[in-house]
């Protein structure tokens, strides 16, 4: 009994240390890979507590190995946008200008009831009142109501990768994007994010070195 109690305390401390090591990203976002990590860590911890026959070192090694792999995996995803897309997927627009994209819903296997429920969670009771709704890569819905105010800003370029869907939605193309960046003296790889709503834009360039402020530019006029 004493061994079981001691093992529980050690595993509890180890799981807290592992989750702390993985950081807030692990606690907040729960992307597919992070969900798998959380599930695995919790399973290993519970098995270790329930099965006193298992050596403690095996459980602790598994927990910390999963934590280390998760950190290195998220770092790889940070540096390789292509890998990040493969790992996390892309956000998918499901409502645009009050019109439901049924093809996207079919692709995501989200029913009309699911969409209506998610929109109600955002205090929007009719898709027609939605300017833009996106299913994020973590499965949550982000929505902007069509209240006659400013339209939502769409990402045109994130982590150096163009968002073709947003470009199409705004009636723009890659040539326009290239021209805009050329005017700003930047290349795609140098851009952290470029948002645009048809009138206003927000541009943040990647920092050259940690500690230096990146170039951010909020343009009230919007690129022409």
């Amino acid at each position, binding site marked *: 009994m004493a061994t079981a109690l001691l093992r529980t305390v050690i595993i509890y401390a180890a799981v807290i240390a592992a989750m702390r090591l993985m950081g807030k990203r692990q606690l907040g976002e729960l992307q597919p890979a992070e969900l798998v990590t959380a599930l695995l860590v919790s399973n290993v911890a519970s098995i270790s507590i329930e099965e006193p*026959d*298992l050596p403690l*070192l095996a459980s602790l090694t598994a927990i910390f190995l999963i934590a280390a792999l998760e950190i*290195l995996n998220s770092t790889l995803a940070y540096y390789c946008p292509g890998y990040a897309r493969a790992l996390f997927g892309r956000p998918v627009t499901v409502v645009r200008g009050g019109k439901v994209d049924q093809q996207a819903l079919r692709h995501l296997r989200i029913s009309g009831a699911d969409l209506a429920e998610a929109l109600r969670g955002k205090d929007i009771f009719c898709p027609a009142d939605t300017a833009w709704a996106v299913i994020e890569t973590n499965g949550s819905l982000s929505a902007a109501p069509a209240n006659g105010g400013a339209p939502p800003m769409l990402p045109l370029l994130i982590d150096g990768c163009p968002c073709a869907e947003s470009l199409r939605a705004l009636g723009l193309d890659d040539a326009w994007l290239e021209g805009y960046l050329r005017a700003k003296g930047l290349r795609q790889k140098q851009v952290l994010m470029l948002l645009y709503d048809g009138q206003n834009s927000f541009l943040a360039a990647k920092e050259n070195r940690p500690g230096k402020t990146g170039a951010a530019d909020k343009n009230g006029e919007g690129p022409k």
Partner: protein
Amino acid sequence: MKRNAYAIALLVLLALLLGGSGLYVHATAEELRQDINNAYALALRADYAGAQRAYRATVAVAEARGGALRLFVRRALVDKLQETIATLPHYAHPDNRADLAVETARANAQIEEMATSFWDWA
């Protein structure tokens, strides 16, 4: 990216810990095997008092290392080995030579099982 350094340090630490634990399990298994075989050799030479002393010393070693071994290999394997080793001094008697041979072989097999279980991929 401090966290990456932590992750790599953690992986290195885990590798060192695993390597060290593997060496400890291997060395302990080798020590127990040698002690048991030495004690059995004394019994074969009909030095049963010496064999009993040697087996009891092995029991003490197995008990002393048991706590650490349970951290690295399955508790059931260590318990089974300790039970087998604990019976050996009682078989070191002229009337029990056959039983002593069987139990010594059993203890050697259990030591082997414990040692291989650490790096067992199956």
